[in-house]
């Protein structure tokens, strides 16, 4: 059902955990539908230095969370905001059609974390 890449991230999730003094935190999903993702980011000079996640959800939910941490680290905030749920699924060599909706929320979670960062760090001219 899942691609090898999904199973790799599921069995070996990267960057699990929390960042103590995170610069931004984003959470999406709800327990009703069964997938909740929370992402923490560390930002320096507009570049994402570190990303960590915690996820309650199925195999697809865990794999998308894991892979997006790898996709985001080292990117500028603007670049990271360009990551879409679709590109996450592509990075994982595809997701089963049923999983495209509820379990594929990692990009939303990352964007929520970036938004949180921007709110806490308004650009002052």
């Amino acid at each position, binding site marked *: 059902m*899942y691609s090898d890449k999904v*199973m790799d991230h*599921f*069995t070996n*999730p990267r960057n*699990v*955990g929390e960042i103590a003094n995170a610069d931004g935190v984003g*959470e999406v999903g709800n*327990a*009703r*539908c*069964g*997938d*909740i*993702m*929370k992402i923490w980011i560390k930002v320096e000079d507009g570049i994402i230095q570190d990303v960590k*996640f*915690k*996820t*309650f*959800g*199925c*195999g*697809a*939910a*865990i794999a998308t969370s894991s892979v997006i941490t790898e996709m985001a680290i080292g990117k500028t905030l603007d670049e990271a905001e360009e990551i879409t749920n679709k590109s996450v699924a592509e990075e994982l060599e595809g997701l089963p059609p*049923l*999983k495209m909706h*509820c*379990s594929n929320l990692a990009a939303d979670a990352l964007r929520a974390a970036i938004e949180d960062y921007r709110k806490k760090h308004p650009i002052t001219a």
Partner: protein
Amino acid sequence: MSEIYLDHAATTPLRPEVLEAMLPYFNQEFGNPSSVYGAGRRAHQALDQARDTVADLLGAKSEEIIFTSGGSEAANLAIKGVAWAYQTKGKHIITSAIEHHAVLDAVLWLKQQGFEVTILPVDEEGFVDPQSVQEALRGDTILVSIMHANNEVGTIQPIEDIGAIVRAHGAFFHTDAVQTAGILDLDVAELNVDLLSLSAHKFYGPKGVGALYVRKGVRLDPLIHGGAQEKRRRAGTENVAGIVGLAKAFELAQAERGEVTRHLIQLRDQLLQGLQAIPHTKVNGSLERRLPNNVNVCFQFIEGESLLLNLDLKGIAGSSGSACTSGSLDPSHVLLAMGLSHEIAHGSLRLTLGRENTQDQVTYVLEEIPIIVERLRAMSPLYNA
């Protein structure tokens, strides 16, 4: 490592003795049971014999048994067949919120056709209160359908009591016994049922064959028209090999029932005890009236599919009521009807034992599950260790 199969409520492996009994009917005794020559007569005899066996095991008469393509067809035939045959008498049907979809969806379809439906709630252990059946019965109630034991949580309903109430009222009573046939002792007179569905692949018989008991005098409109088979209640050339297999498997299950039940209960209770030792774990269903092979628990803060995938990586096959395993957006309708929150219901695990499971397998499973649960909790945003 060979797989540890703990999903016997989903299906069971065909027993070699059953396969052996079936084999001649594929290519040697291949005649059509409706044909008059020798090969046809011999196939017909095999059918008669299977029917006698199944009837005997249920305490029924041979002409009260209809063979079908499985549990789903048996339940559909019982429900739609009675509804159509008696719709001039009344259009009210009663069922419960925890039925298998083969029953629930058939009843809901009838509702679309203009029947009136009452869906009874269950308590937190999954029991239908017989008193609630009494209160739901109306002058125009033609049929009540309540399952014998639930396929997810294993709760065994007080079918005898419900049956007595329904009979006294003059309506018909169907029970879906797909999860109890071959496991519990079934006697249609003791159960006070008018119709009873069963399916061979749940008791080490072949898939795609089942039976419906219909008490003499209960009329049924057929689902399938076209021939005189099964006394015009189910057209189509009979699945002779499958029916022979069903009867053989049912016979074996009954003969070994006492011994197998003791074995299952021992393993079940060991599993239940071991899993309950994991913090934030809830057992679903009743501890008193529970199928001997059923274990169902919810681990808080984690989701069922990721649990199943991890179990699979350790060679353990189980199932879950999580939405992500069902292909729908909601978790198990059974767990929700028992009052569990969505969040908790997503973390359910069902392990259903079979005759070939061993103590060593249970010990191994009880070593692996706590590790997996802990690992998933460590990555859950809902869990604060």
